[in-house]
């Protein structure tokens, strides 16, 4: 069924089709519409979900943790400072191995306070032990959310299903919806082996872990995250049979013969693809890698694809303040280290707090890559794009 929906409504609709047991609900721009739409489904009796309104995101995540431990499939949605307020509980969810599904509508994290899109919120939580899957558009936001539970519940890790605030969450696009029966069959029932309400054997969740055990439990989490990679691909293959839509750890666009490549995350991929189309017409061998799964990071797979290129620009939509490049750059550069022959690599931090990215900007990046490839000189490896500078144009290049 084809229908016009905003990204938020698409995710709320996916939630309705899944019919989770519990939603921990607290509003924050730009994710507010998700619990808002979902409240209507609850009020209309279209779902059986226990809709728990709370006083903060720390509590909405706590509700999900308690419910999931009790044996109930739980969801929530948040953005920016909301995700930051969940910070402690994100770690609790992951370390207690509770496969909660969270819709993260990416927004700049204060300060200065700003409601527009970048990835600083979820990138700040990248080491919390959550699987992170990013959508380019409304269709992917819908599809990723439906694939999240079969992934997370299998490896016992929580999943953050991310989309770009406003750009994706509020823009209305035509998307394909699956039949509700098909979604329910695909997602299945949540059947954990042990849960608090299983009366046959009382369960203790989240006990104090002394030094003699903590390290072992962290290794278990790390192994689960490694296993998640295979599971994500299995679920994607099943999803393709159902929907006809293909998903991997990342998407390769015009990469078969690409000499110059841009690696990025989220909605900017649409802009970058348009730029690549224009450059290809001019004979430039340009390609795009859109990273869909950031946790677990597909390092080996990415290195294999980028090994064939001459110069690569990683585009970070968050500032890690490492003074050494953004988080996507750090991961990508680390992944390329094991290659015998490596492409030149630069990092461009862009789009912070909703700063727009235009096709011309991407073309300028490819022009710089062409120069790097031909001269062998990278110039500033780590730079910012789109900010005003004295005496220079705003491409910052």
């Amino acid at each position: 069924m084809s229908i016009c929906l905003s990204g938020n409504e698409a995710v709320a609709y996916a939630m309705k089709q899944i019919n989770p047991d519990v939603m921990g609900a607290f509003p924050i721009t730009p994710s507010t519409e998700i619990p808002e739409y979902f409240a209507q489904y609850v009020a209309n009796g279209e779902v059986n979900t226990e809709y728990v309104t709370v006083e903060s995101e720390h509590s909405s995540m706590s509700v999900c943790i308690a419910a999931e431990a009790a044996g109930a499939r739980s969801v929530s949605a948040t953005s920016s400072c909301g995700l930051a307020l969940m910070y402690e509980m994100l770690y609790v969810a992951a370390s207690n191995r509770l496969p909660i599904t969270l819709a993260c509508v990416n927004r700049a994290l204060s300060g200065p306070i700003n409601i527009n899109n970048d990835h600083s919120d979820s990138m700040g939580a990248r080491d919390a032990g959550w699987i992170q899957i990013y959508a380019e558009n409304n269709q992917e936001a819908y599809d990723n959310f439906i694939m999240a539970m079969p992934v997370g519940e299998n490896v016992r890790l929580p999943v953050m299903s991310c989309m770009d605030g406003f750009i994706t969450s509020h823009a209305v696009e035509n998307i394909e919806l699956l039949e509700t029966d098909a979604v329910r069959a695909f997602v299945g029932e949540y059947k954990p082996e042990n849960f608090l309400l299983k009366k046959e054997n009382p369960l203790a969740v989240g006990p104090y872990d002394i030094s003699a055990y903590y390290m072992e439990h962290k290794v278990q989490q790390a192994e689960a995250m490694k296993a998640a990679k295979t599971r994500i691909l299995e679920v994607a293959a099943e999803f393709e049979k159902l929907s006809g839509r293909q998903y991997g750890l990342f998407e390769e666009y015009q990469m078969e013969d690409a000499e110059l490549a841009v690696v990025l995350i989220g909605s900017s991929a649409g802009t970058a693809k348009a730029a690549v189309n224009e450059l290809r017409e001019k004979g430039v061998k340009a390609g795009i890698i859109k990273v869909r799964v950031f946790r677990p990071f597909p390092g080996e797979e990415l290195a294999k694809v980028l090994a064939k290129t001459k110069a690569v620009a990683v585009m970070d939509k968050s500032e890690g303040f490492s003074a050494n490049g953004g988080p996507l750059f750090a991961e990508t550069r680390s992944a390329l280290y094991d290659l015998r022959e490596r492409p030149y690599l630069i990092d461009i931090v862009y789009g912070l707090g909703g700063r727009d990215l235009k096709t011309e900007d991407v073309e300028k990046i490819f022009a710089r890559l062409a120069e790097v490839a031909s001269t062998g000189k990278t110039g500033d490896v780590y730079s910012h794009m789109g900010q005003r500078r004295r005496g220079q144009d705003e491409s910052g290049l």
Partner: protein
Amino acid sequence: MIKAKDINEKTPWEDLTPGGEIYEPGTARDFNTGTWRTDTPVFIAEACKHCMLCVPFCPDSAIPVKDGKRLDFDFMHCKGCGICVTVCPFAAIKMVSGGEGA
């Protein structure tokens, strides 16, 4: 499903439960946490009227009761917090300095 008594500080990570979850109740009974104590309560049996006020106040359920009478402390679980001394109306408990062997 592995039981708490079968887990110890030599168990490899592969055999531990996810997130350290425990599949049975009351496992605190099996662990000697009395070693944390730095002060120790002394039960003065002759002063005790068995009013039972100390029993529900003990945060560690370390005061055993049998046939309506309180017994000496369960030093495997007593942390030496001294709450029992404060609530006892008959001065039948005193604190002494020092842990386990005090």
